[in-house]
């Protein structure tokens, strides 16, 4: 029940993007992938979804190499959410969500009863039933994100990999999305999300994986991974730590530590 990268090294267009990545992820956990811009977070996500092949090392799902699985079999087990490309045509929300069933469908076949049920479940879960017939250009950012998330959930995969699922959302929708991702992991799926908001990541994730300069620099429970020393060294920030009224501990990036290893320019 694990998705693992073994000694992975990725070289794209002559540049080393990731090196020495060893990571074993378990289902049932919500993992936050954090790091400064250009650290290789999205590339790691693409490696785990088998969208790019590592130059060296391998990625396994329950011990079997991802590269040895058929595309459809892989797609049924690992769902990925990328928002960068947007939605190219004014399709209805329901049509977008239905795309998640493609790996389950046979050529030229329509939607089966199981497909319909999975689509309805995903739309109910993200609360977009009322948007079913709306088309892309009329959706707000929050609605669009929920539609795309429903698309990914409709796959019904064991793994959900999400690239910056809460970026560009207002605070209410950020909280909703994070709670939803955590709920999905509680239902037994493995959830991995690239996150920029350290406060949200520390609060909602079970485990934090920190990347910097293409290497894994910390990995553990939020309070263990996001130490003051690491935050200063990797992110160049100091944080305020406190306890919310409900007893939850939280962190808040507060100031520049001034010792940032210029990673923005060096790596992007």
């Amino acid at each position, binding site marked *: 029940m694990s998705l693992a990268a073994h000694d992975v090294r990725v070289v794209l267009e002559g540049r080393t993007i990731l090196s020495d990545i060893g990571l074993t992820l378990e289902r049932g956990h919500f993992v936050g992938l954090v790091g400064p811009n250009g650290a290789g977070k999205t590339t790691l996500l*693409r490696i785990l*979804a088998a*969208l790019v092949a590592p130059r060296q090392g391998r990625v396994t799902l329950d011990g079997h190499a991802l590269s040895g699985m058929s*595309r*459809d079999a*892989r*797609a*049924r087990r*690992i*769902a*990925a*959410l*990328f928002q*960068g*490309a*947007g*939605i*190219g*045509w*004014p*399709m*209805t929300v*329901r*049509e*977008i969500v239905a*795309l*998640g069933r*493609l*790996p389950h*469908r046979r*050529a030229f076949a329509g939607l089966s009863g199981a497909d*319909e049920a999975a689509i*309805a*479940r995903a*739309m*109910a879960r993200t609360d977009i*039933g*009322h948007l*079913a*017939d709306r*088309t892309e250009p009329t959706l707000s950012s929050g609605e669009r994100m929920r539609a*795309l998330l429903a*698309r990914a959930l409709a*796959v019904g995969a064991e793994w959900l*990999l999400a690239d910056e699922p809460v970026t560009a959302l207002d605070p209410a929708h950020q909280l909703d999305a994070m709670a939803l991702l955590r709920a999905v992991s509680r239902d037994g799926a493995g959830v991995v999300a690239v996150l920029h908001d350290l406060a949200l990541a520390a609060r909602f994730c079970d485990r934090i994986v920190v990347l910097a300069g293409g290497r894994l620099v910390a990995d553990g429970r939020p309070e263990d991974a996001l130490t003051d020393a690491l935050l200063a060294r990797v992110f160049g920030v100091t944080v305020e730590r406190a306890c919310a009224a409900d007893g939850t501990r939280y962190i808040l990036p507060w100031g520049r530590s001034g010792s940032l290893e210029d990673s923005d320019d060096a790596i992007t």
Partner: protein
Amino acid sequence: MNAPVTTLAPSAARRLGTMRARRVVIALLALIVLALMLASVAIGYAPVDVPAAAADLVAGRTTLPALVLWELRVPRALLGGLVGFSLGLTGAAMQGYLRNPLADPGILGISSAAALGAVIVFYGGLAASLSLALPLGGIAGAGVAALLLNALAARGSSTLGLILAGIGLSSLAGALTALALNLSPNPYAALEIVFWLMGSLSDRSLDHVLLCLPLMLVGWGLMLSIAPALDALTLGEDTAASLGVGLVSVRVRLVTGAALAVGSGVAVSGAIGFVGLVVPHLMRPLVGARPGANLLPSGLAGAVLVLAADLGVRLLATRPELKLGVVTALVGAPFLIALLLRNRGGRA
């Protein structure tokens, strides 16, 4: 659990409605194509008693009306449908794949390369010695273009790389065509080439139909097979790949399918512009924006447009006859301008 079911029920019903609407649109278009083909057989310059000629044909009597029907009218009607379907289908597939509503079947340079192939045959004087030399040259041109593009696509080049290669190929083929015209030994040969390039379905034979039909059928099959992939690509290449779409395989099927369908179409009819660009836009309001759902209707609507334009050419008895490509461009260009203006208005 109750709430989602009740909120989803009406949308499911509406969706069933759009699916039914799509089937109705497809059935209606197919009927119109049939009707236009029959009209195309019935209408021509020489008055022919079509039922009598058909009876002669069936009975095996080689009368003049039967010959006109079989050698001229039937091929023209069939080619109109085949070429139109190819242009409409390829236009919809290109727009869907490139996620660009301004893409047309010729965007990857296949049409220009096919035209160049035919022009080279013209120029070499082969056309006079063998009636099918011209279309064969066109098909060879499209084949070379497809090989180049596929070599690029199989190397995993980006979509942008494919478009740029197409634009390069298109300009190169255009330049070489101009060179052939420039060096043309006499003005009449140049005029003949120019006229041929304008696109026409007149004086084609059943041999032309038999030459392009199998190529087109394979091309259509390849392009229809990428319908689900086109839907998935609406969310970008990464998401499509995560849904099990083989990006290289889709590119190769698209390029090969377009080369077979449009290449053989240009080879038999010359360049007929704007059909493939315009038709998907006409279909989207009727069948929805999902690119995969737009393929078949666009093909049928392309056939309707080309058959109608070809009927118009014959009914408008001008001297010399208007070229088909000229008519489709005259109708298509204002539509394109309207489309651009509306898009700009929509964004402002």
